[in-house]
Structures are given as structure tokens and as C-alpha cells.
């Protein structure tokens, strides 16, 4: 009997895969999705984008394993985390335009809930106001966030920025010169500052 009770694995794989796609569509229709995510290829690598009903909540670089980031989102927000390219389509298109040099600001609501609380949050909000092609210093964003002497704390908050690129922490540099550190590897900071024209295109 063991031989007889077999269902072909390849057919189950294919049918269940299609059923899963349909399930995601129905989940979206029934508003059962608390966190939507999608991946997007950029010159800085494949980014993970995640959004809630309030807005973009997370952007991560490929050094952070996808499973790890999704688990963090599940723990911090809700385990109802579903892949949904449609929900992220607007942001994805804007990122494409940004990397092609055709977009200078992102028009998307942000969900700040994964940002540090208090001062750190204020630092990120101030950072979000630095215009394309310009930079500010750690001391300056700390001052604007309400504590001129907290440049180091401002640096930490920027390192923990949950929404890099869209919240442009790459536009904050040391007063002493150089481009400083970046949570998502320094080559990316340099790439973004060159893309925006603050750094000369050829070194």
C-alpha cells in the first residue's frame, strides 16, 4: 500500500506554488496583510523594501539576510508579513528614477516605528530634510534635533536608520572632512554622494 498512496511531487509543487500566489492576492484583498515586502535591484545591490498601511517602514541592504530582516519585521510589527510587489510598486519606481538621476525627492509616506525613539528619531527627521546634492554634519543635525553636543549620539541614530536612501543618512558627513561612516557599507555612501553630485564623479 505504501507504493500506491503516492501523489506526484512535481505536480504538488507546481499546483501549491500557484495556489500560494493566489492566496497572497486574496490576503491583500481581505486586508490581512500587516507588512508587505518586495525586493528591488539597484546599483547599490538588491534592496529589501517593506511597508505597512502607514508607509515605508524598512529598507535593507543585502548584507542583512532576507530571512533575518523579515523575522525582525514579524517580531517588531506583526508576523503577517507577505511578499507583495504591487504594494511596493510606487516606491520601487521612485528608486529606479532616483538611481537613474531623474528623481531628487521621494514622495512616499513613512512609517517611523522602527526608528530609534526620542532624540534619535528627531535626528532622522532632520536628516530627511537635507536636500538632494547637499550634505550636513553630525554636529549640525544634532543641533537641529535639539542637542548641539550630541554629535556622537546623532551618528548612532543615523547608523540605526531603518529607512536608508529614502531617509538620506548618506548626506551626513564629519565636520573634519571625508565622508565618514555608513551603516550600509561606506562604498554605498560614496556611490550615493557621487550620484547626487556632491562628490565629483571621477575621484
Amino acid at each position, binding site marked *: 500500500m505504501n507504493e500506491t498512496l503516492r501523489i506526484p511531487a512535481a505536480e504538488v*509543487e507546481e*499546483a501549491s506554488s*500557484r495556489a500560494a500566489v493566489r492566496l497572497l492576492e486574496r490576503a491583500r484583498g481581505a486586508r490581512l496583510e500587516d507588512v508587505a515586502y518586495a525586493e528591488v535591484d539597484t546599483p547599490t545591490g538588491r534592496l529589501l523594501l517593506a511597508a505597512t498601511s502607514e508607509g515605508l517602514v524598512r529598507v535593507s541592504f543585502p548584507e542583512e539576510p532576507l530571512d533575518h530582516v*523579515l*523575522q525582525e519585521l514579524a517580531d517588531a510589527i506583526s*508576523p503577517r508579513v507577505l511578499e507583495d510587489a504591487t504594494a511596493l510598486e510606487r516606491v520601487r519606481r521612485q528608486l529606479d528614477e532616483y538611481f537613474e538621476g531623474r528623481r531628487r525627492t521621494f514622495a512616499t509616506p513613512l512609517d517611523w516605528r522602527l526608528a530609534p525613539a526620542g532624540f534619535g528619531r528627531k535626528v532622522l527627521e532632520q536628516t530627511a530634510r537635507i536636500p538632494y546634492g547637499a550634505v550636513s554634519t553630525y554636529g549640525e543635525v544634532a543641533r537641529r534635533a535639539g542637542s548641539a553636543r550630541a554629535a556622537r549620539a546623532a551618528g548612532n541614530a543615523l547608523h540605526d536608520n531603518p529607512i536608508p536612501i529614502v531617509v538620506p543618512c548618506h548626506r551626513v558627513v564629519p565636520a573634519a572632512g571625508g565622508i565618514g561612516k555608513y551603516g550600509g557599507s561606506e562604498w554605498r555612501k560614496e556611490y550615493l554622494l557621487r550620484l547626487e553630485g556632491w562628490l565629483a564623479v571621477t575621484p
Partner: protein
Amino acid sequence: MSVPPFSRFLEEHRTLIYRYLVATVGAQDAEDCFQETFLAALRAYAGVRDEGDGLRAWILTIASRKAIDHARARARRPVPVEEVPDGAAVVSDDGVDAALWAAVRELPPMQRDAVVHRYVLDLPYADVARALGVSEEAARASAYEGRKKLRTRVREEALT
């Protein structure tokens, strides 16, 4: 322990549940029951806690309930076998095994699940017991009884 993101949970269990449903409700209706199973799971998912391997037992229990609901609905409105719905079966369940599968579906739910979990899904008895919410001994007994009935049915089938 925190539960995995639903996307991963779905990916980890989709083939198992699909296979279970093909065995218990047939290829024709597996897709609908699959949708109902995972939508019910998703509705409840925000409040679920995982104790080790408990999520597999949990989703199997939901699928089992959907399969029972489906069998009841079927019994209320019998559908002639000739009427094959459009968008037909992706997993064919006609041919030589048809009688055996029909016999599996006619078993009492506990025996049916014990047989399917053990012999179709290849789960060890500890996991069968967990999914059924009974002792390992009771799971073995149900699988044994179910298998015995299937043998009788298939033998009868061969003789007619």
C-alpha cells in the same frame, strides 16, 4: 518563541498541506480548501505562539477541519461524478488508484488523517499524534484500523 513571517510559514508548509488536501478532498477541490486553510491561518496568525514544531500540527489541524467541512458540504449536495468542473484538476486522481483514494476519503476523520499523515505525508508517528491531538499509541491504532479497512475495500474492489 516568535513565529516566522507568514511568507516563510506558507512556503514551508504549502506542499505538505496541498498533498494532504489532494489525499483527503481530491485534486478537484484541493485548491479551494487550500485557500480556506491558509486564509484561516492568516486571520489567526498575529496571535499564534509557536512551541517548537507546533506550527505544522496547527496548520494540519486547520486543513483537517476544512476537509471535514468540505465532505459535509459534499454530502448535502451530491455532485455527479461526470460533472468535472472547468479549470480542472492539476493532480489527476483517476485511473487505477481512484478506488483506493475514494476509500481513504470514506474513512472516519481520525482514521483518514492517521492514514494520510503516516502513509501519504510520511510523518513519523510522534508528529501524527501531535497533529491529531492524541497519544502516539492512539495514532498508531487509528492508522492500523484505517489501513485494515482500506485493504478490505481494495480487495472487494478487485473482486468485483
